[in-house]
């Protein structure tokens, strides 16, 4: 029905306040092969387990952050600003 997302700014809030921004991935340099570019545009890992994702607190602080969510249970294990973990958690 819903679950809580711990916004790094506003604290745990109902998921309905957020916009899901998709899996975290890096934009590859423009020199990569067509296949790699196509993967960046269209291929998603879609893991069953902890996944690093973008979330936007639409009805709150209006900021993008990253969260590690277990896609099997919707438990958000960790949420942080992208600048705080430049290399990310995976």
């Amino acid at each position: 029905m819903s679950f809580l997302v711990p916004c790094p700014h506003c604290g745990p809030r109902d998921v309905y306040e957020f916009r899901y921004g998709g899996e975290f991935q890096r934009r590859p340099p423009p020199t990569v092969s067509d296949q790699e570019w196509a993967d960046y545009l269209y291929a998603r890992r879609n893991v069953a387990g902890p996944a690093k994702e973008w979330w936007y607190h639409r009805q709150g602080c209006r900021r993008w952050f990253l969260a590690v969510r277990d896609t099997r249970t919707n438990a958000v294990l960790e949420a942080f600003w992208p600048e705080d973990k430049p290399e990310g958690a995976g």
Partner: protein
Amino acid sequence: MDDQPLLGGALRTRLGRVDGPGGLAGLAGWEAARRLAAEVEGEPRIQRLQTATAFGVYEGLLLGVMQGRRLYRVRPRQLIVATGAFEHPLVFQGNDLPGVFLGTGLQRLITLDGVRPGRAAVVVTNADHGWAVAQDLLAVGVEVAAVAEARPELPPAAEALAAAGVKCFAGATIHDARGRRHVEGALLVRLDAGGDPVAGSERLIACDLIAVSTTPEPAGALLAQADGRLGYDPALDAVVPQALASSVHAAGAVTGLSDLGFALLGGRLAGLEAASALGLGGGEASRMATLRAEVEAHRARLRRGLRVRQLTSVPSVGRKRFVCLCEDVTEKDLADAVREGFDHLETLKRYTTVTMGPCQGKMCHLPAIGVTARLTGRGMAETGTTTARPPVQPVPLGVLAGPHHEPVRRTPLHARHAALGATWMDMGAWKRPLLYTSVEAEVRAVREAVGVIDVSTLGKLEVVGREAAAFLEWIHPGRVADLAVGRIRYRVMCDDAGIILDDGTTARLGEDRFFVTTGTGSLEAVGQWLEWWLAGTGRCVHVADVTSAYAAVNLAGPKCREVLARLTDLDLSPGAFPYMAVREALVGGVPALLLRIGFVGELGYEIHAPAEYGAWLWDLLLDAGREHVIRPFGVEAQRVLRLEKLHLIPGHDTDALSNPLEADMAWAVKLDKPDFIGRRLLEAARARGLRQRLVGFELLDGVVPGEGDAVVADGRPIGRVTSSKWSPTLGRGIGMAWIPPELAQEGVEIRIRSAGRLTRGRVVVRPFYDPDGARLKS
């Protein structure tokens, strides 16, 4: 939370004396229930929610609770489930006849509704509770014609009934219910050791009521949803909780044992454990350990005293042997399904819909397992259980959806439009004037004199910062960095697949300060898009949504300069304030931002002023324009005007496959720039060649086609119309359409199928009106 109006659970429906602990001993069940409820009601620290059904446990122990039309979402840190148990019906021929009841159902009728449910009853049971039901029936004056006990020996409770003259049969049960429209009799039969009926043992008993009272089936769905594990326990002949999640506790009959003393003790322990897990006390460890041992001892004692005989159906034939009364699934249906290969309970459930009705298996879960076990020759435990999913009780969608809130956004000029009698249209949450008088009059005013339209709904973003120019340059296919201060440029924005997301204008107010407008509906997406690409980069760029801070109007038409000149000291001459320039100035004493742009294709000024002065400015403009017969115009006229200029609207004329090259906006894409968002696929699209093109068309005959109508060739669709209007300026129907690139040349004839008829049109690639923009730039 209790789904009943009064506390007390099943105890409320019992007439018999309880042999509970201490002060409760000797009270009737309903009296004991009152006593216990009063204790809870007298405790101010307990908040009660009655007539409130906890219908499901969701992620993170979220509890959905429905109370009437109200929905509560409860996130307990500790959860105690005491949902009790249900009896389940037996499967026998005629078990859907009116007059066949569950024992607990009869007890509810007797105690809660004051109903004497029949004249003569036959009680069919395999549990002690059936004998209590027989007692309650006697107590309200129902004759008990017989009690059929499936277990081989009569329990001690039988003595009192036998003494009252009730026929009691051990090792017997019902074979079928007799009667045409209502129960008229019960055919009882003896069971052999294997559970099969003994031939020749049938005995017909006349009655108008059949009470079926079986081993209680724990209402464990919530426990299962809360990550507990349920399984069949042969000692109890029930599916019971076998493991619970760490923050979940169970007490009472839901654990599989129905006994008042045990329920009270178990409830006490569950409460103390929950409180101690929350750090709210709960007593010393030694006291808890003692209590735990006490509960276990009680449990062991109860289990030792259990005498069960598994009974879900009596083997026989017949078409009216219902397993699932909600979904009308009979034993024969299950047998057929098993024969077809659906011999696993989970597939059988989906194939036959057994347990999938409104009661969600409360009644038929155990019978379904029992029948399947027999049909497949597997044991009850091996047959397994179905998965309990929310909701455990039907929930109206309206309760889940919540109250109907439709937020409306009104512009600062809303009251002025209402006073003018505007016809409204919805654009997202916004209300916009569609029309004030007639499209023709409004279009003519703009083309020949002056008009004004409320464009406050345009998305407005301020993008500021040392790196703002570089960022905007990178996120747009067009150029931004070389834009001079005081100048404006059209902007189209794409994603990295080269698909058009939005368009608008970029005005450079300072070296590090930009005023960016977006489409009415795309503000949120564009703002978030910019923020997303900035997130974590540390770039010195700030994006502020100033949409509702400004009221905005577009003053347009050949006379608009004269009107505006009356309200401002700003030099409006084309040399001082040319097309695609931006100025900050006072208009009517109000600080305003003026953008000289022209969506509608005339000399025009987009004036942005603080929202609180919007109405004041509007009044001044209408007043200043009176001499030139200024007219407010609505969205309908604006759409006609822009179509005469072939200005596209993203999302209306474009879709998720449209790139700007094919949308005839190659001029807004600078592929000679280094990397930018969308570059790679736009480059690829250019190399590949255009697959479709967005062009204008004018009609040679027929009616104006609808938006979405097909462009056809040889009877097959080759494109589609995205916009179409009657142009009062040109005196004919015009529009925009996607067509194959080879047809995208001025003058090519196309056919459009509209309302079942073919209409002829001619491709137009240059704007219909003022193709060189002379009026815009005047």
